[in-house]
């Protein structure tokens, strides 16, 4: 029973398996996600065929590079790990996980389903819970619909009134920063790669943020919705900001997907977080989320009254020699947005 690499020419029932057992996204999504039309032939997903030709399981990988001082290590997030229910597919999941491990040096994943969290420790994987999702509820509705208020209709009126007062108090004011500015762009230009190379050392190790990678993950995402900005400091491009607005549970969710900034420049991060919140608030979002793993970003979020909502566990099967531990990894929604995972 072979394990095959996913290709544009793979049988239609492989894509049907993905739509049925992973997420009903459609073939255009899978072709984008696994870059099946890209010129390079590096396989980014594998499926397990049974003797009757049916698909027993699937796993995808999102390649990245771990940087540690002078060393670079091939790494990959594994995503969309799924097996067909029933005894016939027993073992397919582990087989595919090992195939993914063989395709890279360090295999990683974030969060993980209940099954994933049960299986990985048995395979001697390690986990840290340093990254977390932070949230700021910015509308009366988002504040009022929480918890028991959902079930007690008579409380909604007073709760909305109280929520509107709280929302006004929580509104994040934008601050004037003569040295700082944002420029919205359709695509991250290739000239940004020089900024990324310079900035990477301040954040290492982390997911690649080349113009090509950011364009793939945000600019060419089939369902759209991402907004990209270049961060200007003293008139020069010094970082980037990615935002996204979508609907979740009848609320409009704004997200700070990703950012890089000059880490040693006083006030830059605080200004950037306030600008991001300002843009999202002007769009009328009900709440704002941000995934953070670094102390300076956490402080900036806390300074805007964000609260830590839930951890985002990072799983890894091994670490290369000399690599910084995952506690030090800089992670954002770029690593764990459902769109990519």
């Amino acid at each position, binding site marked *: *029973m*072979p*394990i095959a690499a996913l290709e544009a020419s793979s049988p239609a029932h492989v894509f049907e398996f993905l739509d049925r057992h992973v997420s009903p996204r459609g073939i255009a999504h899978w072709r984008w996600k696994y870059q099946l039309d890209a010129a390079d032939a590096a396989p980014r997903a594998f499926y*397990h065929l049974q003797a009757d030709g049916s698909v*027993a399981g699937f796993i995808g990988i999102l390649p990245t590079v771990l940087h540690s001082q002078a060393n670079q290590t091939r790494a990959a997030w594994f995503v969309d790990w799924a*097996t067909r229910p029933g*005894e016939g*597919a*027993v*073992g*397919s*999941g*582990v*087989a*595919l996980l*090992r*195939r993914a491990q*063989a395709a890279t040096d360090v295999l990683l994943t974030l969060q993980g389903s209940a*099954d994933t969290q*049960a*299986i990985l420790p*048995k*395979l*001697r994987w390690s986990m840290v819970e340093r990254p977390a999702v932070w949230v700021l509820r910015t509308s009366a509705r988002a504040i009022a619909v929480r918890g028991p208020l959902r079930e007690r209709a008579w409380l909604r009126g007073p709760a909305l009134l109280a929520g509107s007062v709280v929302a006004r108090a929580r509104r994040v004011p934008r601050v004037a920063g003569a040295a700082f500015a944002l420029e919205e762009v359709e695509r991250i230009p290739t000239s940004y790669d020089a900024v990324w190379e310079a900035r990477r050392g301040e954040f290492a190790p982390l997911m690649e943020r080349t113009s090509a990678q950011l364009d793939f993950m945000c600019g060419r995402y089939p369902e759209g919705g991402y907004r990209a900005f270049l961060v200007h400091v003293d008139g020069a491009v010094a970082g980037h900001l990615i935002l996204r607005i979508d609907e979740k549970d009848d609320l409009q969710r704004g997200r700070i997907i990703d950012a890089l900034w000059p880490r040693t420049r006083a006030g830059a991060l605080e200004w950037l977080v306030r600008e991001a919140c300002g843009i999202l608030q002007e769009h009328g979002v009900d709440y704002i989320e941000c995934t953070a793993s670094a102390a300076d970003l956490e402080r900036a979020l806390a300074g805007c009254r964000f609260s830590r909502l839930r951890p985002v566990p990072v799983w890894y099967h091994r670490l290369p020699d000399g690599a910084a531990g995952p506690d030090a990894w800089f992670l954002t929604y770029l690593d764990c947005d459902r769109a990519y995972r």
Partner: protein
Amino acid sequence: MRDDIIAVFAQVFGRAPEQFGEDTSPATVEGWDSVRHVELVVALEERFGCMFDPEEVPELTSLTRIEDILRHHG
């Protein structure tokens, strides 16, 4: 080798060795799901000092097949 494999099964599934025989398979052993299969794979690798290839892992579903694959690993 067969006795050692059965000992691993007894340990992983928490049952007496006599309960495992030629008809042992995911269809006949209660609780043999994906998670338990992982435990079985890891326990067999530790007991026999080998590392199964990815394609071999789903094949480890009967005593005879496990014996064949372990012999292949020497």
